[in-house]
């Protein structure tokens, strides 16, 4: 784990990212001006509810979705201006794992071939060297290559398929791993296995991770820092323990109070948010959360709150943060 303050340049820098999708004559602004850094060796959690743009942000980073504007700098290289060939080379460094482990594996191919495919495409090593690497990779994610290697994905459970997806993502030894809701389809006991595995692999391979999820407890468990998103914008970024202890944004506080804990003596009473998230086609003026915020004032409608630092490493986008 690298202390963000000590690290010189971040491994990934996202600056003022916008992603819009055309919808009829209007446009949906899925991501509207998001900026954050991820430092080498850290895990940044990106949390938010459905439709907040967290997955779109992840997809824009690996350039599956073309950003409308903004800059994404990975390891000193600006990604949004790269040509196809250069981007393709760079993609070996940035890998993504998706939510549904079963549909993200080709059902007709054998596990060995699925994990070897990135190596085959890049013609890395001889056939024997590739096989050795695949076996070692499968072994490190807890799949026995000699028993399981010749089987097809349908013979595996969701948790095992997710392990295979992780092996495939890591076989090229990427620097950055983007995990999009990788445990939300799994049972809790399997979820724990995958989360522990991710922590082990991160340590073993020196990975940097962007961990996108909706489950606050899961995000806290794996992240060094957490960023909270609402309706296309970041609300708050802080070291995990700090964010969960003293949230400064009213949305973060509401989100935390709504989370259920397996403890009947829990004393938290959820702050029930009024209404529903507004449409991203026609977002509220000023602060996007103001229509549901308990502290909203006229200034919130007039002025967009920028992300500002309120404590070392703690940034919040709110005119009237909690505790101010």
């Amino acid at each position: 784990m690298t202390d963000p303050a000590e690290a010189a340049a971040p491994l990934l820098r996202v600056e003022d990212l916008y992603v819009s999708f055309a919808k009829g004559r209007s446009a949906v602004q899925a991501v509207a001006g998001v900026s954050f850094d991820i430092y080498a060796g850290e895990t940044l959690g990106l949390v938010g509810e459905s439709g907040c743009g967290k997955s779109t942000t992840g997809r824009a980073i690996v350039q599956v979705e073309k950003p409308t504007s903004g800059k994404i700098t990975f390891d000193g290289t600006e990604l949004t201006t790269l040509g196809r060939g250069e981007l393709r080379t760079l993609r070996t460094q940035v890998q993504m794992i998706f939510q549904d482990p079963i549909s993200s594996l080709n059902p007709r191919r054998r596990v060995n071939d699925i994990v070897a495919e990135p190596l085959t495409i890049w013609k890395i090593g001889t056939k024997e060297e590739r096989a050795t690497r695949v076996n070692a990779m499968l072994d490190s994610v807890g799949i026995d290559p000699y028993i399981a290697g010749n089987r097809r994905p349908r013979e595996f459970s969701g948790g095992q398929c997710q392990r295979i997806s992780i092996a495939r993502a890591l076989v090229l030894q990427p620097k950055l791993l983007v995990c999009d809701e990788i445990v939300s389809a799994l049972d809790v006991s399997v979820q724990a296995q995958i989360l522990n595995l991710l922590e082990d692999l991160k340590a073993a391979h020196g990975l940097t991770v962007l961990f996108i999820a909706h489950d606050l407890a899961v995000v806290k468990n794996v992240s060094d820092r957490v960023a909270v998103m609402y309706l296309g914008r970041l609300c708050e970024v802080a070291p995990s323990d700090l964010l969960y202890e003293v949230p400064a944004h009213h949305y973060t506080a509401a989100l935390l109070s709504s989370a259920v804990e397996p403890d009947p003596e829990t004393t938290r009473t959820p702050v029930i948010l009024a209404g529903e998230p507004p449409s991203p086609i026609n977002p509220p003026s000023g602060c996007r959360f103001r229509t549901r915020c308990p502290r909203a004032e006229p200034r919130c409608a007039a002025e967009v709150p920028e992300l500002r630092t309120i404590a070392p490493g703690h940034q919040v986008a709110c005119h009237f943060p909690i505790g101010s």
Partner: protein
Amino acid sequence: MTAPLLEVTDLHVRFATPRGDVHAVQGVSLELAQGRTLGIVGESGSGKTVLSRAIMGLLPRHSAAMTGSVRFDGTEILNAPDRQLRKLWGTQIAMVFQDPMTSLNPVQRIGHQITEHVRIHLGVGRDEAKETALSLLMQVGIPSPVERYGSYPHQLSGGMRQRVMIAIALACAPRLLMADEPTTGLDVTVQAQILNLLSTLQRDRQMAMILVTHDLGVVATRTDEIIVMYAGNVVERAPTDVLFREMSMPYTEALLRSMPRISNPSHTRLDSIEGRPPDLINPPAGCPFAPRCPYAQSRCHNEKPPLVEGAVPGHSYACWFPIS
């Protein structure tokens, strides 16, 4: 003590498959009194959904063989003819399903879907039914019910659709509400809203409620009693506070320990449960959890433990070597 509203005795459910019979529910007994809430917790494949559908009489008769007894208000309803069940469904027992999108008819306005139900079961006229429907929409917290009355399901968000489902379920004032994963797939803030709504309605109407879920967090503060299921068996049953404080079954302990918690610092190592649940076509001879249990001894592998009473009234567990 008055007779329980629902009494299930030694219920078995078997499904015929080409590989053999899947014994999905293996002798489950439970009672539920008027006005009480029971949580049924288990991972995927534990039989919790099959159990709830068997109680409702919703399993396909041609493929599911059911034995045992399900008595509702003193009347045997297991394997009862549809004619008899139709008089119970909606008016006496109602169900809220997991997926509010596919449970609603996509080509009918939601107002019609509520009034249809009211008119058939209560035999009231069109205008009276509409009034009832509007008051129900109000009760479940749908803003501007008059406008929403004419909406189609796709025009509503997931949380709103689930509210409509709850309104339909409550339309004829059932005495038992069966909620199968009512908040899975909803955002945390919406989940808190829906769970609060269900608790309030249950209390106000003195309904009995069964909350089926995979999430111990959901049932921790909202049930009187919890049943933990594993591989088709009830492995532990206790009043809610007793279960969390003095669990006796290693599976319950393992399940609870594998859950990440917001109250724990980040990077807390999770205790995952290794292995996977047994095959229900050839269930193991002994305790179904024995192959994954850290405390298992030879007796556990050979002899299936019965559900026995613990020291606290209402607490029972199926384990030869309970945690003390």
